């Protein structure tokens, strides 16, 4: 996630693609798919230490671009399955539509920025009520008991099950979902303990699911586990993928 916030230039794959296509304003038609793919891959290479989820998104687009290009390099296009051909063009159109949408909001955000810069030149009066009238103000604590304060504190600080860890409220968490989540989380933080991972969970069942998910990752050789003493903290270390594992978060692309 840190990449997304800190990057000076590209906040995402569409951002990068937009830039690569639009950078050369003079020779619009010189832009070649091949050139874009090369530049795109170069950029991805430059991004060292990008978190997995982000990298996957970039790679997915690169793959689409390369597929578009490679289809064209085939000696005889008539060999192509018509359905596949159409699917490919659909893919391209989708990418185009997304780029247009991305560009639209990019420009809109500049308008918002301009508005906010203008607005920031004007300072509101926040002085509030004059002393002479303060006595008139109604007692806002009317009817509030010490117990109500206690309850309000609990409301404000109670662990929230739907923190920011999930895209949707986890009604019923599955092991598969947790595996996916852990892949994203662990690739970023590297090393942690099961206790740490499950500290915001509310149900015991959730802890069990986490545990099963961690075991699954261990079985696949994606994480390493160690436990110094019996009943001690279970330490989980991220090892990473080998080539044929596939947890790509392609779902993110379904608008």
């Amino acid at each position, binding site marked *: *996630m*840190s990449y*997304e*916030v800190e*990057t000076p230039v590209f*906040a*995402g*794959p*569409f951002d990068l693609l*937009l830039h*690569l*296509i639009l950078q050369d*304003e003079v020779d619009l*038609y010189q*832009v*070649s*798919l*091949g050139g874009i793919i090369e530049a795109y891959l170069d950029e991805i290479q430059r991004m060292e230490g990008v978190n997995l989820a*982000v990298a996957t*998104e970039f790679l997915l*687009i690169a793959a689409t671009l390369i597929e*578009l*290009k490679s*289809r*064209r390099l085939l000696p005889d296009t008539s060999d192509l399955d018509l359905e596949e051909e159409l699917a490919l063009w659909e893919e391209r159109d989708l*990418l*185009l539509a997304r780029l*247009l*949408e*991305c560009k*639209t*909001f990019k*420009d*809109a*955000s500049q*308008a*918002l*920025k301009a*508005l*906010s810069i*203008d*607005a*920031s*030149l*004007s*300072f*509101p*009066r926040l*002085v*509030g009520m*004059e002393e002479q*009238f303060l006595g008139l103000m109604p007692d806002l604590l009317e009817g509030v008991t010490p117990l109500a304060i206690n309850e309000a504190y609990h409301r404000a600080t109670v662990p929230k099950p739907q923190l*920011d860890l999930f*895209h*949707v*409220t986890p*009604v019923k968490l599955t092991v598969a979902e947790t595996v996916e989540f852990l892949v994203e989380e662990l690739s970023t933080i590297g090393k942690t303990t099961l206790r740490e991972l499950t500290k915001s969970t509310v149900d015991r069942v959730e802890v069990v699911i986490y545990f099963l998910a961690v075991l699954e990752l261990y079985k696949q050789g994606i994480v390493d586990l160690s436990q110094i003493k019996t009943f001690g903290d279970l330490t989980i270390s991220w090892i990473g993928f080998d080539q044929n594992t596939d947890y790509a978060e392609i779902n*993110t*692309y379904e*608008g």
Partner: protein
Amino acid sequence: MQTEESRKAIEAILLVSDIPIDASLLAQLLEIPKTEVEKICTQLMQEYKKDHRGFVLVNVAGGYRYQTDPTMAPYVERFVLEGQNSRLSSAALETLAIIAYKQPISRMQISAIRGVNVDAVIRTLQQRGYIGEVGKDPGPGNAILFGTTSLFLERLGINDISDLPPLANFVPGADVVEALEGGLRPDHVGEKLESQPHDEVAIIANDETNSD
């Protein structure tokens, strides 16, 4: 109530309020029609402007309030050291734009438009109070839906979300669409296009030269 009295009362109430006050509340307190309040406020705005006051009356985030004249910012900034809002990153701004125009919208939907995970950005925007949870998607998953807050309106100096420039204004022009389309076109097609002369441009340029 006399207009003169209403005018004075509105000025007094707005002076002691620390949030924008809407016309209906003023109308209720003064027992005059809302349209009268609006008329008076418009008049006040003009008077302050005409008298070159250092403050202005604005209608922002659904209400009226006093704020300093923008041209006086250098002096006010010398006095008010804090309060300069830290700038938002472009990623945050773009996400904010999507939410502003598409609200209510889920994290997932924003993510689909941005092409990246937006969790961190959403958290920042929420912490700054620019966006808030406005409901839950009734569909499966019950995704949280986000929308902009009145602080967002204030920060942008607008009264209502409908005061934003229409999104249609930002839909890329034909040139950009062509460039993008060309960019995603297989190479040999691009070459063909390249050889096409740009006649129209030349003709228009000529016309203008002649007409002078």
